[in-house]
Each structure stands twice: as structure tokens, then as C-alpha cells.
């Protein structure tokens, strides 16, 4: 169902962590979700503060919008692995129900490998971007001009964790595929 976007809770039991890698990632994801939650609430306060100082204290605002952008970009990317762990990245599942279970299992593996290839490629290009921004000391073009390695590193870490998460899911599926034979 592709409309599953607007905050309906779908009850999905996360698979029990098995290997050490699974457990480490689950622990990391938990930390990331906490950090992301805090970042989101903080962004809300930063924007509220912005309204107050500009309107009541007549002080011009320069850093608030960009800080909120960084905080929310961080919240989105850092929690994306945790969302993937719950299979929360929504997909069209029209044909899934029609397939025999073995075929469906194979389909899931193919789909996850394709997702993995994309996310890993994206993560790799993010590392390259981060390296460039760090070495050449990139800053944003605003008057405040914060260094860009900050948001880039959040995006890079997030996409890397997401790739690791999908990799672990693929390994898990391959294991199940073999055990079902």
C-alpha cells in the first residue's frame, strides 16, 4: 500500500537481533533515534526563538534557519537506518500478495540488493563529498556561512548506516533462503 505515509501505525515486529553485527547496529540505531528526536525538538525551539528575537527584540536573525536545516537533515538521515530496520520505507506491494512465497522471497532479495547497491553508491559519493568539503574548507554561501562538513557528515553517516542495515537484512534473507531449501 503506497499511501502508508501519513502516520498510520503499522504494527511490525522487528526481527530479533541475532548476530553481534545485528545487535551493534540495533544499539546504534537506538542511539540515532534518540539523537534525531532531540534534534527535531531542538529545531522547533530554534525556529520559535527566531520568531521571538526578530519580532519582539527586533534583532535580525541569521543563523536560525540554517541551524534548523542542519538539525532536521541530521534527524532525517541518522534515523533512516532505524526506519529501514522496521521496513518503514514505504513500497508498492500490489504484486507481493499474489506471488508464491518462494518467489516472493527471491523478489525480496533482488529488491534489497538493488536498494543496497543504490544506498552504498550514494554513501560512497557522500564520503567523497565530505572529504572534499573538509579538505577545501567549504562554507555555505549565507552571511553566517557555517562549514558544510557538518551537514555532509550527518548525511554520510546516515547513508552508511542505512547501507549496513540493508546489507544485514540481505544476509538474513539469504540465510533464510538457504535454510528453506
Amino acid at each position, binding site marked *: *500500500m*503506497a*499511501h*502508508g*505515509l*501519513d*502516520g*498510520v*501505525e503499522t504494527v511490525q515486529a522487528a526481527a530479533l537481533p541475532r548476530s553481534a553485527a545485528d545487535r551493534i547496529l540495533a544499539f546504534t540505531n537506538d542511539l540515532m*533515534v534518540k539523537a*534525531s*528526536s532531540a534534534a*527535531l*525538538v531542538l*529545531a*522547533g*525551539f*530554534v*525556529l*520559535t526563538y*527566531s*520568531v521571538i528575537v526578530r*519580532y519582539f527584540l527586533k534583532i535580525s536573525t541569521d543563523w536560525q*534557519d540554517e541551524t*534548523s*536545516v542542519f538539525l*532536521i*537533515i541530521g*534527524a*532525517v538521515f541518522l*534515523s*533512516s537506518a532505524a*526506519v529501514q530496520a*522496521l521496513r*518503514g*520505507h*514505504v*513500497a*508498492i*506491494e*500490489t*504484486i*507481493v500478495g499474489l506471488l508464491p512465497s518462494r518467489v516472493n522471497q527471491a*523478489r*525480496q532479495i533482488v*529488491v534489497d540488493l*538493488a*536498494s543496497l*547497491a*543504490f*544506498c552504498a*553508491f*550514494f554513501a560512497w*559519493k*557522500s564520503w*567523497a*563529498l565530505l572529504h572534499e568539503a573538509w579538505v577545501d574548507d567549504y562554507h555555505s554561501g549565507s552571511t553566517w556561512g557555517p562549514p558544510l562538513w557538518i*551537514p*555532509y557528515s550527518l*548525511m554520510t553517516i546516515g547513508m552508511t548506516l542505512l547501507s549496513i542495515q540493508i546489507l544485514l537484512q540481505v544476509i538474513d534473507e539469504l540465510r533464510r533462503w538457504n535454510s528453506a531449501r
Partner: protein
Amino acid sequence: MSLLSIGLLYGGATLFAMFLGMPIAFALGAVATLFMIIFMPGASVDTIAQNVYEEMASITLLSIPLFILKGAAIGRSPAGRDLYGALHAWMHWIPGGLGIANVFACALFAAMAGSSPATCSAIGSAGIPEMRKRGYSPGFASGIIAAGGTLGILLPPSITMILYAVAAEQSLGRLFLAAIGPALLLVALFAGYAMWKFRREFHAALAQYKLAGTESELLRVDTLTVYDKFALLPRVLPFVILLTGVMVALYGGYATPSETAGLGAVLALALIASIYSVWTPRELEPILIATLRESTMLMLIIGMSLLYSYVMSYLHISQSTAQWIVSLELSRWVLLAAILLMVVVLGFFLPPVSIILMTAPIILPPLKAAGFDLIWFGVIMTIIMEMGLIHPPVGLNIFVIKNIAPDIPLWDVVWGVMPFVGLMMLAVVVLCIFPEIATWFPDAIMGAK
């Protein structure tokens, strides 16, 4: 390779990846990246991460998670139940007043929470049992809630509208205001239908009573004291104040739309802390986790949709398709009908966010060339996508209703919802004949364009 074949391949590859069940965000990103690698210079492939970052790093887009946080905070509190109770106490004397109270409660809640399914579940979980207890047929009761919930993506602060404003490069403030007239039109249509349908069910019950002496709850007359009417008000007022406060901050020029999102989220958290004493980290955790789940999923789809349209435009697929549509020289209304039909079909499979970002570069230039006002079209397109939330095959709100009232057969829900789909089509026709319903309000407040 000709442009036409590249375009067809691009569309075909996307459909294939999506129907294989690849998550929408990754499918869009993977197809875009693949075509970048094959058809675009190596240097542009290297900047893919930077590209996505720059497209996403707009405070308007990134205000979406904060609007979601505000909605989740309100949605998870008992505010929906209180709001509904208060409206019922004040409106029960009108024929069909209970149904109408539900429509109004949905509209008000949607304006606070900004989400269709959240509205359905918050108002529906109190409203559906109450309506059924009072003799409303299950299909009628679920239709009211499913349709009322769709107002969530039309009324400000609708996430769908934020994306449309970004994609169509239109003023978000103007777009929000343009949605208010049509939303009121829909509320009036829904309420009118609820009254008419109630009278039909009422007369059927009355005939049954006269014929066979069968008692029906529909025939019972409520008596609510003045105390009942005022007892619930204090709990509802703060939320109504939040709603109007945020609107005043936005339109009074005190805050930008994104600042409004931050302000709204902080105020909503403060309100549930003070009224329902929800403030400990343990109590806030489910709200924050639900917010993150939805925001992260949505923002990744948005980021990847933007990459997808960037590639489509770099390869001139969108421009050529748009030019081709213009060159057909269709009459205005045929063009509009064809485009809306496409939106309906896409709505069978895709969430509104991807429909907007993927189709905007193709459909907006021809519409503009044909002389349509893009603010007005944003409202029309949103109503069409609202219909996608309640009609099969994937009408999300139908499934929300199935969740809160599992004993109502799916067919009853679907049949109960259908008249409302008809009313929404009627509203679209009315808006085509009288576009002023949408454009008058923003023109009056912000000056003519």
C-alpha cells in the same frame, strides 16, 4: 538513442522497480542514478550526494517534519475525543447533527494536525462508535469519517500543499489561503449530505416503527444540559487558540511558514504537557518515534523525487513531454481533464508527495500555457489526490477505518465512502466554474497577483 526512447525507458524502469516492491525512495534514486551513469557526464554522477543535499536543504521543505511533529503531538493526545464531544454537545439538536459534528470535528482537527489518516483515527475512534450507537448505518458513519479526514491534506498546514508550492514555485501563504474556500465548500457539501442521508435513515426507521413498532436509536431525542455544553469547552479552546495563533503568526507577517512549523510544534508539545500532562521522555517517546518514522520516510522520498526530476530535466525528458503536450493544442478543459485523469490513475499507486514532485515539471508548463492559474490548480490537484485517499484500490483512510472499526465489512465502508467521492468530484466541477472560490480569499488578504 532518441529522446523518446530514453523517456520511455526512464518511465518503464521506474514502474518496473516500483512494482517489484522496491521502496519508493530507493526506486526513484536508483533509476535516476542508473540513468545518470549511462546518459550523463561522469562529473554529474560524482555530485549526486551534493545534488540531493542542495535540493533538500530548503527550510520550507524541512519544515515538514515539524508539521508532522505538531500533528503527532495533537493526534496522540485525547484532543480529538474532547473536540468531538464538545461539537456534539453544541450541534446535537440539528437533524443529522451528530454526523455534522463529526464533519466539523474532522475539519478542525485536520487543520490542527495536517494529516488525513491521523484525523480519521482521532475523530473516528470516538465518532464511529457514537454514530453507530445512535443508529447511523455503519457505511454512513465510516463514510463521514473517511471523507472528513481527507480535509487534512487540503486545509493548511497541508504537507501536500507545501510540496506543491515548492514544485510549482508558487507562494505557500497564498496556496494555504486558496485552500480555505474550497475546504469550506467541501465541509458544506459533506454536512449537507449528512443531513439529507440522516433524514432518509430517520424516516426509514420511523416507518419501521409505525409499521412494526421496532424501536430505533435514531428516533431518540437527546437532552443535553447547558452544563454539558460548557463543561468540555475549556479543554478544546487551547487547541483552537493554537490553530488561530499559528495562522495569525503566519498571515500577520510575524513568522515565515517554516518558523510557523517550529512554533506550532513547540506550542503543541506545551499544550499536551499542560492539559494532558504528557511531558516525560517516556510519554513523549512514542510521539517522537512516530514523527521520525513518517518524516524520514517522507523526506527520503522527497529528496529522491527531486533527484529524479533533476535527471528527467537534465535529459530534457520533462521539457520535451511538456512541449509535446502543448503542441497537441488541446482545448483548455480537455487538457485539464486529461491531466486530472492521470493524477487519479497515479493516485492508485503513489503517495501524493511523489505524484507532485514527479509530474510537476511535465504538467505545469502546459497548464500555464493554457492560461490556468497555478494556485487554483494546486487546490484542484489536491482535492483529486484527496479522493485517492478514500477510493479503492489503496484508499488509505478506508484502511484506517477498518482498523478502528474492524467489525464493519470492507464493502460497507467502500459503499459508504462512494457518495463522498461523488461530492468531491462535484466540488471540482464547481471550482472549475467558479474559480473565485479558491482565488478570492488570497487575493483579498494578500492583494491580487
